[in-house]
């Protein structure tokens, strides 16, 4: 009923919760906070926290110059968009079939999907490399994304969500003459919006940061993602240079953090039973 917009504060966080939540958050954000501190200060302050420490952008300059980051940003953005789009489309279709269709072999098929969760992609490097070589896709963005297009994680997550969507709405749509695809697209997908948001955030983060497979399957700057550039700084032969690593990290992660701050607003009560008695 008429709830969503204004609610009285009942059963809501107390000040104890607020304090605890903030403490935990400060703990959680510590690595990021450290990264910010270190990136903006000269190297000798990377382990010392003096208020008077001078600020500098030099670390960022060094990081930026170490690799063709502009190109990498472009590649990564394209990659992430492509992978996410494919995952959402394929995952949505498959999840819908699993959630709302009864058919022979459903459990087996679902088990087969889940298997992907357990098989670690890195183990499949050599085989998948061979496949890409056969397809002539080595050193392309598509090759980086292709093995991830079908995501068991997405299918599983969306299936769970679709199962929770009130059957009444499915029925209403079908009575209105909507086909399965129309029902999916016009009822299920919009209702699952918070979950799509969650998945998108996670998937984007993952592929933004994914490293080994992109490194192996690509050779040229034209196809390589950001992390390949970032990895330049992680060589430990010389010991860890926190200043430049953190600067590079902030530089590459900033879009994600900003995206998160924008997207987290999508987590709004989109409860599914508002029009159901």
């Amino acid at each position, binding site marked *: 009923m008429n709830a969503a917009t204004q609610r009285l504060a009942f059963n809501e966080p107390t000040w104890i919760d607020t304090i605890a939540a903030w403490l935990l958050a400060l703990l959680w954000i510590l690595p990021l906070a450290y990264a910010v501190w270190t990136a903006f200060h000269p190297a000798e302050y990377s382990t010392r926290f003096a208020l008077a420490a001078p600020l500098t952008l030099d670390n960022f300059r060094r990081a930026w110059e170490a690799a063709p980051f502009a190109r990498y940003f472009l590649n990564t953005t394209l990659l992430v968009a492509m992978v996410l789009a494919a995952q959402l489309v394929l995952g949505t279709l498959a999840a819908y079939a699993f959630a709302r269709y009864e058919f022979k072999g459903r459990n087996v098929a679902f088990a087969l999907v889940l298997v992907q969760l357990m098989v670690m992609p890195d183990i499949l490097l050599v085989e998948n490399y061979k496949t890409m070589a056969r397809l002539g896709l080595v050193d392309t963005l598509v090759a980086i994304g292709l093995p991830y297009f079908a995501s068991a994680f997405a299918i599983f997550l969306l299936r769970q969500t679709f199962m929770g969507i009130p059957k009444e709405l499915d*029925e209403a749509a079908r009575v*209105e003459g*909507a086909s399965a695809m129309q029902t999916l697209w016009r009822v299920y997908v919009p209702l699952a919006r918070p979950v799509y948001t969650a998945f998108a955030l996670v998937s984007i983060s993952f592929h933004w940061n994914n490293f080994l497979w992109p490194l192996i399957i690509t050779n040229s700057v034209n196809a390589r993602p950001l992390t390949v550039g970032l990895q330049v700084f992680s060589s430990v032969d010389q010991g860890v240079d926190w200043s430049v690593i953190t600067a590079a990290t902030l530089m590459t992660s900033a879009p994600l953090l900003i995206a998160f701050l924008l997207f987290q607003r999508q987590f709004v009560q989109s*409860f599914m039973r*508002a029009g*159901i008695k």
Partner: protein
Amino acid sequence: MSSIALIDIAKSWGDSTALHAVNLQIEPGSFCVLLGPSGCGKSTTLRILAGLESATAGRVLIDGRDVTTLPPAQRGIAMVFQNYALFPHLSVADNITFGLSVRKVPAAETALRLRNAADLLGLGALLERRPGQLSGGQQQRVALGRALVAQARVCLMDEPLSNLDAQLRQDMRRELRELQRQLGLTVVYVTHDQAEAMSMADQVVLLHQGRVEQAGMPRDLYARPATTFSARFIGTPPMNLVALESGRIAGSDADTGMQAATLGVRPEAIVLDPQGMPAEVQSVEYLGADLVIACRIGSQTVLVRTDGRHHAESGDQVGLRWALEDAHGFDAVGKRIH
């Protein structure tokens, strides 16, 4: 215009059986009301008709075509759900026109139908709202609107007016009936409102525990209830059923001249007449236009409906009278005998 037939429809969930071999014939273009106590299987019948629930046994025919296994979308129906089932993420306007946009009805036509429906239902000012921002009755009207704009040949309505005020309900009834006649819709309508059933139906089907208890024209059901269940179910306050002992009202000497196990007489058929059967007022219920007086005769209680301006008090002695043609007789198992 579409005819509908249910043939030996049964429905069970595990042990619990909601419908036992229901048979039903609905004329094309007629208005059929399903009536019955809560949980008797009205919604289930509707849902089987719509193809939302698969019958455990039996067949569904629409226009003579067997649609038992057809999906809802292919049955050419519209439906108002008892629980509304509005799409929470869509505005009122989008909810109402959902089916039209699914069927790719042209925009102009859609806008026209939407405007008509919104005017009819008094939703004009709310078209941009989401269901979560509506009152219960407004939600129900949106659900009704969604079914109306579809202009399907068969329209199923599950208590579509239950959350509306009397006024509005009255208006809606009239409009619905008119629309149904105009468009030649076949309507199957669930309600628990007697007046609704009586005033709208071409045919009333009374369900009881998953079986058809009686089906017929409203006047017939009211005037000639086939069983004591029908008798008591239709009419407010319900028909008085008085136990007889060899023609006399149980626990009294009042002779009814009836050979039946049970005598039925409607409260509104009883007149207060000092010359009538002596009775004592037990309690009085004021209903505005009417007054319902519960009177005692022997061991039996008899309700009398009378004019609201009457005054009566508990303990008063009154006389009751009714015409012979208003007396119904039932046998021991509740079947009508005369």
